[in-house]
């Protein structure tokens, strides 16, 4: 039997020979929202890049499976095709390449119909208040930080991923944009059973997004796991108080 879940087991990741993640474990079921919080340098971004297979992040030990499928054996694009989506903290600008061409090629590789891509883009853009004129821009070029995050959310919607890793999607977003983006993601979770791994510094993302679990990451592995109430304790005590360091 194949378990429907994203399972990260004993993940060890090195960057330039330096060990960053040291035995990270997490299981996310469809429709669940898991939040990973942690101080700077705790390995949050490393986790997101390693999951998606960035060449600079070397997995030295452990496994990642999506619905039973070994993700680490696959190139990035096949991980995406399997249903994994990474919402980057700093989306990359790619001059001369349009969003539509990327989404079309992705659909083509999946053997899906490509004629509806444009319409889907327009609908998703509307649902998060992403101005339609931005759809014509080369990927992320000349977009503000907030527009880039809306653009990431739009792509998540069009690609129809099953699990999304959101790397600080809240950073650089103003109040309205944050509300629009987090409502949309909560919608994917409620309606399409999207599993979410949200990496964040701040609790404000959680005003709309309803977390099932909060995990505190420090020194490369999860130190503490709890329910939403953990956020309040973190606000009061800080990482030092919470982790007793």
């Amino acid at each position, binding site marked *: 039997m194949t378990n429907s879940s994203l399972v990260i087991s004993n993940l060890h990741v090195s960057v330039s020979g330096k060990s960053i993640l040291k035995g990270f474990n997490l299981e996310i079921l469809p429709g669940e929202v898991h939040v990973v919080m942690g101080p700077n340098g705790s390995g949050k971004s490393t986790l997101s890049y390693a999951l*998606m*297979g*960035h*060449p*600079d992040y070397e997995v030295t030990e452990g496994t990642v499976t999506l619905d039973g499928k070994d993700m680490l054996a696959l*190139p*990035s*694009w096949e*991980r*995406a*095709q399997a249903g994994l*989506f*990474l919402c*980057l903290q700093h*989306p*990359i600008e*790619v*001059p*001369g*390449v349009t969003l539509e*061409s*990327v*989404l079309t*090629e*992705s659909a083509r*590789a*999946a053997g899906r119909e490509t004629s509806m891509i444009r319409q889907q883009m327009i609908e998703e853009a509307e649902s998060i208040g992403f101005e339609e004129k931005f759809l014509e821009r*080369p*990927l992320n070029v000349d977009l503000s930080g907030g527009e880039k995050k809306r653009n990431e959310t739009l*792509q998540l919607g069009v*690609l129809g991923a099953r699990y999304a890793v959101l790397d600080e999607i809240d950073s650089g977003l103003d109040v309205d944009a944050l509300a629009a983006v987090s409502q949309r993601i909560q919608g994917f979770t409620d309606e399409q059973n999207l599993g979410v791994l949200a990496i964040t510094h701040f609790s404000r993302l959680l005003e709309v997004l309803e977390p099932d679990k909060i995990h505190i990451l420090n020194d490369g592995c999860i130190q503490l796991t709890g329910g939403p109430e953990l956020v309040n304790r973190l606000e009061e005590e800080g990482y030092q108080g919470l982790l007793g360091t």
Partner: protein
Amino acid sequence: MANSNLEGFTADISESFSGPNWLSEIRNEAYSQLDHVEAPNTEEEVWRYSRVNELNLGELTPSSNRPENFTALPIDRFSSSSATVVLQDGWISNITIEKEAEEDGVIICPVGDLEDGVKYFGAALEKPVDLFGYLNRAFGPEPLVVVVPKGKVVKGPIVIVSLTDTSEAVFPRIIIHCEDNSEVKVVEVQTSSNTEAVISPVLEVTVGQAARYSHCVVQNLGARTWQFAHQAVDAGKDASAEFFIAGIGGEYARTRTDCRLTGRGAFSRINAAYFGEDDQTMDFRTFQDHISSDTTSDLLFKGALGDSSRSIYSGLTKIRPEASRIRANQTNRNIKLDPEAWAESIPNLEIENNDVVCSHASTVSPVDENELFYIESRGVPTPVAERLILEGFFNEIISSFPVEEVSAILQEAIVGKLDRRTLDQSEQLHE
């Protein structure tokens, strides 16, 4: 004697070319100087990294016979052209001028047909800059001249197709003169059959006061052809001279472009896209000479190098002491697609005035790892993602070309090269 290896380039051949007396004198004079002209060698900065040392001039003879049979040429796609000219092996074989351009007084003819033709020859290039320039003068058939009258705007492009179908040395020359306040676009399609020809074309352009000149070069030579092209432009007061170069074919294709900003307020632009494959070498040298104040130059060269192809970009932007309020940009970007591919990029500035805004930038790197990761992370297969990035990379140049048909030719050539890469990659996967 510096050029004892020029045995095939005889006085008899030089004297055999037709044309007016003044042209014969130019040929004679150039021929008599050949012994004193140093053969180019890679020790000189302007020939550094070039493959000129591989060329054995002693094995070459100049093409001296007017070809009898002319090949059908791909000119029908320029539906809106104002005129078409066909040069074969450097000889003018056909000139067609549309009615509107003719009524406007646009002149397109062999230079000897003009009584005052001599005043156009050498107007933008008084003296050859190297041995190939002297050979062009001594062994070139009668040059083509284009004169655009004062104040006239030529609507469609003038299309000049230069076809080489010989394995000899070929020396075409095109001379263009835009009188004051005129406007014209010229498209030069350079093509050759599968011969080992060595082509040294010279293009001279003078742009009068406030005139607007655009020149598109489609270098689509055969895979075994060598080319040493020289383009020289002189821009007058408030004139605009723009060059757009598509480097597609050839085994070794060198283009040297000299922009002389002579008049106050003159503007020059050179945009180029080149894509090397197999063992092609694309060699570009540029000189932007800011002679007068308030002049602007802009330069953007973008290239991709696959297989074991090579490219050289070497450019000098020079600001003279008496030239103030100058703006000059010089950018060269190269994407190295394979480990054996190689790109050399040398942008230089020589500034002798304080009141200038100058920039220069150059990069040689593989496809950006982060751009590739980003597109792949959306579910796009690696070769397709690489392709999207390359198409995007060239898009900036393609969209800048002022003649739609030329943009389309460049786009098709890039797509064709990318298709061959995709095919090679999938064959390698299945081996």
